[in-house]
């Protein structure tokens, strides 16, 4: 077996303890680990294949550590990423400020990277509306402004998690399709040749 073939690089970004690792854990291993909070060290990579319209797409997911210590390193994780899932904790408004920072960072350095804003720990605000500190509509406005997608998920219940990654894979698949006409452009060149050929022949 050789190294895994990865179609799309996906990077998880966001303040520490917002639940990036839990989100990946839920999506990849379909489970939610209870127990003491464990920081991610550096970054963790995991590949996951997903079926999109008869096609198999392998997402290479980089789950980065939220700690400021790794900020200088973060570029190596998001460079060349096709999608970034920027997470914030619905019960922590400061985590949304941090999400804005990451969006800015991506817009500056990685303009081809699609951004998905993801509010985590939805289960906490569902049971207790007072716990919500990040307003849905505020985020929606922000998302429209920057041309991103918006999800609210719960890794504990699994709510909306698959939908989020499905959307990421679909968008990738569609954008890959968009590339095809360009190839036709090369074909046009061939036509041109044949045109010249016919021309000369004429």
């Amino acid at each position, binding site marked *: 077996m050789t190294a895994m073939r990865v179609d799309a690089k996906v990077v998880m970004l966001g303040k*520490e303890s917002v639940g990036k690792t839990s989100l990946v854990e839920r999506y990849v291993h379909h489970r939610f680990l209870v127990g*003491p909070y464990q*920081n991610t*060290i550096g*970054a*963790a990579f995991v590949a996951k294949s997903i079926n999109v319209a008869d096609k198999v797409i392998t997402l290479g997911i980089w789950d980065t550590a939220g*700690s400021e*210590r790794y900020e200088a390193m973060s570029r*190596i994780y998001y460079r060349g990423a096709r999608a970034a899932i920027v997470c914030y904790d619905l019960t922590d408004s400061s985590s949304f400020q941090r999400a804005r920072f990451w969006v800015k960072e991506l817009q500056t350095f990685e303009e081809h990277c699609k951004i998905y804003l993801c509010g985590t720990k939805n289960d906490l605000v569902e049971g207790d509306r007072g716990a919500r500190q990040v307003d849905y509509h505020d985020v929606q406005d922000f998302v429209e402004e920057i041309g991103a997608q918006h999800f609210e998920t719960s890794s504990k219940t699994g709510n909306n998690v698959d939908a989020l990654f499905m959307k990421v894979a679909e968008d990738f698949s569609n954008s890959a399709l968009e590339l095809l006409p360009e190839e036709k452009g090369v074909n046009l060149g061939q036509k041109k040749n044949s045109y010249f050929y016919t021309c000369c022949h004429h």
Partner: protein
Amino acid sequence: MAADVHSKGVTWDTPNGNLAPVEHLPSSRSESPTPGLVEGTEPGGGEWVEEEVEEKEVEEKEVVEKTEEQQRGRAEGEGSVNEPKREVQAVVREKEEDVTSDAWRLHKKHVFVFSEAGKPIYTRYGSEEALSTTMGVMMALVSFVEADKNVILSIHADGFRVVFLRKSPLVLVCVSRSDQSDSELWRELHYVYYQILSLLTLPQLQRVFQQRQSFDLRRLLAGSERVTAGLLRLLETDAGLMLNATMSLPLCSTTRNNVCTSLQIASSKNLVFSILLAGNRLVALIRKKEQHLHHTDLHLLSNLAASSSSFRQGEGWTPVCLPKFNSSGFFHAHISYLEQDSDLCLILVSTDREDFFNLSDCKQRFLERLKKRNAYQALQEALHSPTYPVSQVGIPELWHFVYKSKSSGLYTSPELPVPYHTEEQQDRLMELYQHLHSRLHHPTRPLRSIYRSTNTENLLAWSTSGFELYLCFSPLATKALAMSAVTKLLKWIRKEEDRLFILNSLTY
């Protein structure tokens, strides 16, 4: 800045020591706990502060006496109530602890780290904010003594030892109620210091404080509390950190060879070290030619891998500084478990931060080769019994032992038998070993061997140029018996050598 590589000039090996490649795992004992800043010779100071400067020898004598007194006091008072139960995993709870409570005061060993501006960076128990005045007072003590061109090393009072380690721009302090000597505590503080360096590198640490003296380093260390807590616990439980050695996983030689060669072949251009661990036991280590991994760096790596479950979830990729190798730059480590629920952790250390997929490929190749040669199965089976009962040696009165081979920097130890089945008893045994260790390696009066009798066990420690040995016997054993047991044990170890140790050091 305190001179880091300040050699003490006292060698622990006997003068006619062999020329075994001890250098490639230089003993960090040679690293002096004496900061290089000592300029003045005035020991003076207030009556309530014992400063150990220059007058070390005199001081040390007192220390030893004190320790023995405490030891006796302890043996009598054992089993009394004031032994706080330590809970390893409850790092979070430890952080929330009330620092004014008695329980907080009763912790056996506190560790504090703060900046030269007195700003708190780390505390083992309780929150840094709540302890900012305490750390401020500590910094004041340090500065007060330094104003006289002197250095505060430790304070002994009321059964407590307060040990200071100055590593500009940081100050590390340990407050201990244990019987450990100052130099043991300094060694532990050094570990905490290296742990911080491994996350930041020395230049980065210096830079942030040069830019702003009042910088809050916790911002950069966020998320490393578990790593440090794990390290402090390891210092109390793993004899390897005391011995400057690593425990090897007992493995039959054919399996070991298979594992080693498979790992050796799975190389990549920028790979410097390939390390296979089972828990904190070393299974195999392959290194680049002429590059050596210091045991301190190995302990830091193995502790890092054990500190986060995120390495189980996927393949980890993290910058890491190996401070003993080079404190000024980052390596990049690929950390992963061979299988999700396996205890076998593979750490691949590279110089290139873009090397992730190359190393991921190395891991795959290693795993395939292991499986093809059926070595993976054999390795898994060895993990079911990662240790051996002491009864294999065939000395009835021998309860436990720790044997370090100085040439390989590895040690072996049987499983802990019945009297040491509780955490409390295990900690007690470790403390006994630590006590013997500090006597053998006394800074001014090192010993070659020591025999010690307590109500609960008889202990013998012996150090030669080739090995260091600690034995624990039942209280009924005698000195004569202990001596004959050593001969028998050494014979047994020789016979089992290729199973217990990793005999050849392989390079790519």
